């Protein structure tokens, strides 16, 4: 897993060890390492690592979670999942969310970051406001927007006043528009996060570079286009990765606002997994869905890092797991 690993060589050389005088002190050192390492290792293995391995194992069985594991079906669950129209539809929805995120959410965040820029007076105020939805829980965000999307109130009332002859939309009850409706909420909640990353990267660009460009006669827009955006390259590539992994795993808002419905119109892989894994106790099948989900994320992350990031992204996956 060298991909996410930072430079191991560097750490090796910087940390020296206390002089080892005897076997006893070496033993003590070993004890410290074990004592420091074990609690984390145990919790991590029991609650993260083993469940992942188990998911792969359960996915080969037909199992309702109650009886002993015995009905070995080999890859049948995968076959079932990949030929299930609803599941394929939910993969499609995830991909749609992914594409919309990359085409709308990230450019929007970048635009706002550039508008705020390095100098706009009052930029801390705007940053504070724009980032605020990110720290609210999805339940709160989902319920507020569920109200705004009510057929008989919220947004429809406003639009009825503004547009004459406006027909009330069923924002969350129409399978054709439920996904875009939810996507708007996702922008509302998450653009601030990406914007904050961009603004932080902008602030890291030395003023001297801007200065030099200005002396050479570049306009504000030219500085933005030819200096700021290229220098944000790494951050942009990183946010693409975060956003894509997030899109593939998205659950909370959708579950709260539409439960994946109506008529599976906003079903995603995670809501599907939750419905079929838990609510109908098909644990083997649900695990297979989980493995497929993981495989998609993993392949995407690996390919992306290999071919596009090219550089280590140490500390950058912070959000990928959340």
């Amino acid at each position: 897993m060298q991909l996410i690993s930072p430079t191991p060589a560097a750490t090796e050389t910087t940390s020296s060890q206390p002089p080892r005088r005897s076997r006893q002190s070496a033993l003590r050192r070993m004890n410290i390492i074990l004592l420091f390492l074990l609690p984390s290792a145990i919790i991590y293995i029991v609650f993260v690592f083993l469940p992942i391995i188990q998911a792969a194992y359960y996915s080969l069985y037909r199992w309702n979670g109650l009886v002993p594991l015995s009905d070995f079906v080999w890859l049948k669950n995968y076959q079932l999942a990949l030929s299930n129209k609803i599941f394929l539809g939910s993969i499609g929805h995830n991909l749609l969310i992914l594409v919309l995120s990359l085409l709308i959410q990230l450019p929007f965040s970048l635009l706002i970051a550039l508008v705020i820029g390095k100098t706009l007076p009052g930029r801390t105020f705007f940053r504070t406001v724009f980032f605020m939805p990110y720290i609210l829980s999805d339940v709160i965000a989902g319920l507020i927007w569920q109200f705004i999307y009510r057929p008989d109130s919220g947004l429809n009332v406003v639009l009825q006043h503004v547009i004459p002859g406006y027909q009330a939309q069923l924002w969350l009850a129409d399978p054709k528009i439920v996904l875009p409706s939810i996507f708007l909420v996702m922008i509302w909640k998450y653009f601030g996060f990406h914007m904050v990353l961009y603004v932080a990267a902008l602030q890291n660009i030395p003023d001297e570079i801007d200065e030099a460009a200005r002396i050479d006669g570049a306009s504000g827009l030219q500085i933005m286009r030819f200096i700021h955006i290229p220098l944000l390259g790494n951050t942009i590539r990183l946010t693409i990765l975060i956003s894509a992994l997030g899109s593939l795993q998205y659950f909370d808002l959708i579950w709260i606002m539409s439960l994946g419905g109506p008529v599976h119109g906003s079903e995603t892989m995670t809501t599907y997994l939750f419905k079929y894994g838990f609510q109908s106790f098909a644990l083997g099948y649900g695990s297979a869905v989980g493995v497929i989900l993981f495989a998609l994320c993993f392949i995407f992350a690996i390919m992306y890092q290999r071919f596009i990031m090219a550089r280590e992204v140490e500390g950058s996956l912070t959000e990928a797991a959340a």
Partner: protein
Amino acid sequence: MYTIQQTPTYPRATLQANLVLQRRRRMMRLYVQLFPRYVICVLVAIFVLVPILTAFIGGFKTSGELLNSPFSLPIAWQWQNYANVLTQSMFWQAAENSIIVMLATVGLLMVIACPVSFVFARMPFRGREVIFNIMLIGLLFPFAMAILPLYITLRTFHLIDTLLAVILPQVAFGLPVTILILRNFFRDVPQELEDATYIDGGTQVDFFWRVLMPLARPALATVGMLTMVASWNNFLLPLLVLNSPQLWTLPLGITQFQSQFSTDWASVMAFISIAMIPAIIFYLFAERYLITGLTAGAVKG
């Protein structure tokens, strides 16, 4: 002789008028440049704030008024909805559970993550990088993938329907990010400090406990706050493992309240607002730390 530099002499008044004019022109240019930027920012701020304010103000309306004029100020400010929520024992119970889960998660995570980050940063041994990388892969795992087996594991330990079933997995899934941030911080502490500890007769544990930990306070605050927000907002895991209403955390309590009072949106808005207030206050105070934490490492390179 002298060459007298003939400077044009203007009357004082004209000179001043010129300066004022110049300054005004410069200000104008600045305004023209800033104005569209402010327009965009204000529009986006409205987009962000309207839903939040709708909830706060909605709690002060009657439900009928809220449905008819969702975004206006209330005709008469009703305190009843807020009072009703605050006198519900369910609300206080949920708030208490959320606080217990949050503090236990942060506490346990810190206690186990600090030592292990120290080992990863400053105590090399064979196979260390392999272990470190296995822990980092956790960042790539979708939580959703692990929930089914996780549920089975928790059931095996008879933890289902206890707060520990939320706390322990939250700690486990919080480990990778925390270790990553702390390890980087510990690694960047100069070697001289470590050497100085040994010269003074200290051990590695002394160095860790007396030198590194006090130095790491800002980093600890950062990861601690990230964990607190994540724990406070967690929904999927509690939804899965907590069945008894008296164990529910706030996010579960809110959904329950909403399905119970689905016709009474004003009360739901009041409940949401009260649940939102601590998060927003916390955010306004901790913003710097939260943002540092999220951008840590993301922007370098």
